[in-house]
């Protein structure tokens, strides 16, 4: 579903991502871990079509992000680490806006908004302006907005930050359910326990370079993901 082929992205002299290649298949939850400034967000933004890359190619469902960005964006959703949403819209207004952009039918959006807003306990708040939402509520709204067009690929940057335990649990359940139905999820996290329990595969990145990748069992072996991560990045 997502194929990252040898991408490099530099900011001036510094290479934020250096020759990175990954392959995320349909049905996989793929964790992406690394220290602060390792290049996780840059990679996710490049996949989402926000940042161009200096070298390499990214394919979503076999389509090049560089050559056909709009076709790729139709198939995916991106949730940033700090979702700044339109504060001048209401929650339902924002979800409708996103659904219009993604050309979701009235019936589908109605059903999905109801389902996910109920799941995340946000239904009662949908009539209120986003400016009145807490960080966690904005995060929930961003997740619902990402799911409203039933994407084939979801890119999430630190999706658990700011969520209460119940919402975090709902996110994990939703992620698993989506992937069981054929969606692929590529997400970055610093919560290694979550990654260990949730991910089918994991990649560890350091200074923009991939240092370890594979199934959870392949990467961590008999130890914990935390031990492996610390031994690799130190």
């Amino acid at each position, binding site marked *: 579903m997502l194929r990252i082929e040898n991408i490099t992205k530099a900011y001036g002299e510094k290479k934020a991502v250096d020759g990175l290649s990954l392959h995320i298949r349909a049905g996989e939850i793929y964790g992406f871990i690394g220290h602060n400034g390792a290049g996780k967000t840059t990679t996710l933004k490049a996949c989402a079509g*926000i940042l*161009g890359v200096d070298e390499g190619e990214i394919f979503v469902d076999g389509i090049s992000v560089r050559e056909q960005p709009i*076709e790729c*964006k139709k198939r995916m959703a991106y949730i940033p680490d700090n979702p*700044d949403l339109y504060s*001048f819209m209401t929650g339902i207004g924002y979800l409708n806006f996103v659904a219009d*952009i993604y*050309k979701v039918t009235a019936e589908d959006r*109605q059903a999905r908004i109801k389902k996910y807003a109920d799941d995340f306990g946000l239904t009662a708040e949908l*009539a209120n302006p986003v400016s009145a939402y807490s960080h966690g509520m904005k995060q929930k709204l961003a997740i619902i907005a990402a799911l409203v067009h039933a994407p084939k690929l979801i890119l999430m940057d630190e999706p658990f930050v700011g969520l209460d335990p119940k919402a975090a649990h709902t996110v994990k359940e939703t992620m698993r359910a989506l992937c069981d139905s054929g969606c692929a999820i590529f997400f970055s996290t610093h919560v290694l326990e979550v990654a260990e329990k949730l991910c089918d595969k994991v990649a560890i990145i350091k200074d923009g370079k991939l240092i370890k990748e594979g199934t959870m069992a392949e990467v961590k072996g008999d130890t914990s993901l935390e031990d492996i991560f610390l031994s690799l990045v130190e």
Partner: protein
Amino acid sequence: MLKALLKKQFLETVSALFTSAKTGKKRSPIVGLLLAVLLLYAIGAQAYLFFTLSQSLCAPLVSAGLDWVYFALVGILAFTIACVMGALLSKAKLYEAKDNELLLAMPVKPSAILLARMIGLYAFDLLFVALVFLPAIIEYFIVTGFSVLPFAFCLITTLILPLGALALGALLGWLIAWLSAKLRAKNLLTYLVFILFFVGYFYLTSKMNEALSWAMANGNAMGESLSGVFVLRWIGEACAGDTLSLLFFVLLFGGAFALVYFVLVKTFLATVTMQTGERKRAYKERKIKRGSAFFSLFKKEVLRTVKGPMVLLNAGMGSILSVIACVLVLVNADLLSSLSNAVGTEEASVIVCIVACFIASSNVVTASSVSLEGENIWILQTAPVDTRTVFLTKIAWHFVLTALPTTVCAIIACAVLGTPFFTAVTVVLAVWAVTLFCAGLGLLLNLKMPNLHWTNETAAVKQSPSALLALFGGWASCALLIGGYFWLGAYIPAWGYLLAVTALFALAFSLPFVWVMKRGVKIWETL
């Protein structure tokens, strides 16, 4: 601590002018020079306006021995302008900065935060006071000859007067902030306050000429009526060299500032952390309608403008002026009729068209529309929508917001003038073409000079070099219309001239439009 806060305040104010928000690097010297020239031009033009006003007032009053009345009148003008401008800024600058929580979490006293922000506002007020007062001082010493003591006292008055304006403006800003937090219709309140100020300002300035003419003719009577107002007498006599008056004036204005500062310090924390009075509404599921991507994007632009009063009041000033102009046209229909009688209906229609174009070019909606995306820009960058569609919606909203009221205004004026139908059509077409050109130019400039990292949306509009350049660019283009008619008016009929203007501006619009749709798209993708 205060020094660091002041430095932050200063950088926040000037960074958009001299630094690129995108790269964090200094702008090119050419852009910097251009902006500096434009700023100097704007300041110089205003100062010249007040200088000519001073010229008409000074000699008659000074020759009648009413030096203090001259300075009292100038003082009223300076104080009013600084107060109005300061009040409009104070709520946003004192209480609604995005870094409130950041600063309050630091070991910084709220009093220091407030003082730093008030000093920033004082600088603005001082600028407005100086624009009025310095030309008046120069004219005074031209008439009377230079004298050290009155000169020193005049400068002290110039420095102290903004303190009073600041005190009153800050108090009003606090009141608006408090009401905004307590009332549900906070946007409505902001609009209401602004319109009241605006109407008051227009009323005062419209009466100013009348009052000044009367003052020149009846200096002694004016002196008698003002002498009972001690503050004005102190300001006037202080500038004329009276030490005791200066002392009273400094004590009064300094004291007023200190008192307001003391009151605001006590309430600052409560005001910035006040819960808003917005009513929580429970969502009731309704049948959802589907809309096109273009319509949704357009609606988003509309919401962003009307839900943020400061955005509409600053970027959409032309639309507000249009509404006021409509009322003025209806109220002063006789004036238009006499204009028509004096220069002829066709010529009067061209004048109406040029005025409408000037008003239309005062809108800088597109010139701040990219900056206003701010931290939300990721939403559109990751959406499966052509960037050109995003730009088209921005241009379309600029056009609708501007052309709608200006067209109504132009049609009313043409109806009052009795403009022939075809000429009236060309008036409207010319206004539309100028509006489109300004929309395209504004978007181009904002794409070249975006500021996505603002702490208050007012900064994205007010302190934006692109908005400033778009405003002056639009006005300069409209000024060409006047010159063009002087040159061509004798050879072609009014409708012919206006058709040529329409064609020219439509062509001119195509230049920024093509640039935006090609180069602009690439810039947007890298923001």
